[in-house]
């Protein structure tokens, strides 16, 4: 379980997150909705030790992690999957995946996890020798998710997995996330305005101007007039 309490994050002069509190239950899928540039990515990055400057508490199953460097957080099984993918362009798909298992606790499971992710993404198996820079947007997205899974994580922070994908690939990515969750992974997911994703959610938060403005189940979200208007366009 991840618990974020009174989190404040800063980007240079900007105060991006203001006293944010969220809880992600074990094996849950928590979705954070919100307009672009309101701090969703920063929230995920803060949890994974990638934000510039933060104050407040973040704990993983009771262990404080807010002051740990990213590599320690990855070692504890928390991994970030970037909206911008952040692959290694001049390395092959296989090398990218192997680097996904770089952290100490992932190394013993490298072979086993490789088999698992290639099973989950058969297309990557066909392209294991291809340079990451030559992949299409959808394939690169899958590689980014697969690389994250190689870390043997128990908690995935997924940043806008559907961004820039055509609808059928979007569905594929969401189905994959659902499968991963069913296999026992806890997922915190950020999306801008995709109603589709609400189907997966065990809990929804809305982040606007750096503050949580809504917290509730998907049924509550769907019946909230303000939310309907801004995100679901209904």
């Amino acid at each position: 379980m991840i618990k974020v309490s009174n989190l404040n994050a800063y980007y240079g002069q900007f105060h991006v997150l203001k006293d944010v509190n969220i809880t992600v239950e074990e094996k849950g899928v928590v979705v954070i909705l919100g307009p672009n540039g309101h701090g969703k990515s920063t929230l995920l990055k803060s949890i994974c030790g990638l934000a510039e400057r933060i104050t407040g508490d973040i704990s993983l199953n009771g262990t404080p992690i807010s002051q740990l460097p990213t590599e320690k957080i990855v070692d504890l099984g928390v991994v970030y999957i970037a909206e911008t993918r952040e692959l290694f362009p001049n390395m092959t798909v296989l090398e990218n995946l192997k680097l996904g298992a770089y952290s100490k606790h992932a190394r013993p499971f490298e072979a086993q996890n490789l088999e698992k992710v290639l099973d989950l993404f058969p297309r990557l198996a066909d392209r294991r020798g291809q340079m990451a820079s030559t992949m299409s947007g959808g394939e690169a997205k899958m590689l980014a998710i697969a690389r994250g899974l190689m870390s043997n994580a128990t908690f995935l922070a997924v940043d806008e997995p559907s961004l820039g994908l055509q609808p059928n690939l979007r569905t594929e990515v969401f189905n994959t996330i659902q499968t991963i969750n069913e296999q026992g992974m806890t997922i915190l997911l950020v999306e801008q305005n995709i109603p589709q994703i609400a189907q997966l959610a065990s809990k929804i938060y809305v982040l606007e101007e750096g503050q949580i403005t809504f917290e509730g189940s998907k049924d509550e979200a769907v019946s909230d007039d303000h939310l309907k208007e801004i995100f679901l366009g209904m």
Partner: protein
Amino acid sequence: MFNEDTILLLYEITDVIIAGLSNGSVYALMAIGMTLVYGVTKAFNFAYGDFFNMGGYFAWILIVGLGLQFGGYITVLIIVLPLLFLVGYGLEKFMVAPLRKRADWENRVMMLTLGLALFLSNLYMVLFGTKLKSLPPIMDGILEIGQIVFSYQDIMIFVLSLGGILTFGWLLNNTRTGMAVRAVAQNPEGAKIVGINIKRIFASTFAISTVMVGFGGILLSQKLFINPTSGGSIMVKAWVVTAFGGMGSIRGGLYAAFIIGMMEAFVGWIFGMSYTIIALFVLLLATLVIRPQGLMGKGA
């Protein structure tokens, strides 16, 4: 078949080629070390040439100063290379890394290493005096193949620096740390995400680059002299090779080093040694005008 003059000319050309290869191999070592630091840490080390001299002085202390008898250069390398590694690691960890947190850190690092270069060359003068020092050759004697004569010194310089480069290339492609170094060079943010301790990689990269240039210093100081104030011009030469090859490109640095080594040897033979530096800068100017990203650089 050939008259005597032609044969003599051929021998001379062979000599020039051998000199070009042996210098070129050391330049390759130096250029790869420099391009590595730039490619991975985005920092430019102005004290680079002074670490070349540091390698030379360390070897001098052991061989001449302490009169080391046992094992010759093998012992020297076993002692000096790890020492250089520690120096480079410490430099990054305690001096460069703290600056990295600030805005405009690249310029601060430039000033830091510029200051360090001045400090080191003056330190060398205080410790070793202004007189040039020389190192004995790794191996005396010559190897005769038919009529062609190779000095063992040139052969050893070539073999050892090439060995250094190949070892480095192997480590880069086949070890976990090597893969992490490449990952940081290609995408530092991605490297952080997969759990690579990029601070440690930065320091290790500085350390490896210091080892490479210092190793070059040990090798080349047997042919040249160790000069306490030559760091700047050595850094410039390493930089010209690196820029010609393309900043951040290891393969480019390797090709550039051999091209420049050969060019120097031939220019020196045809026009005289004082023209080599002119040729070097003509090449640099031509590179900057025609192909500013260098042979294998990716451009801005």
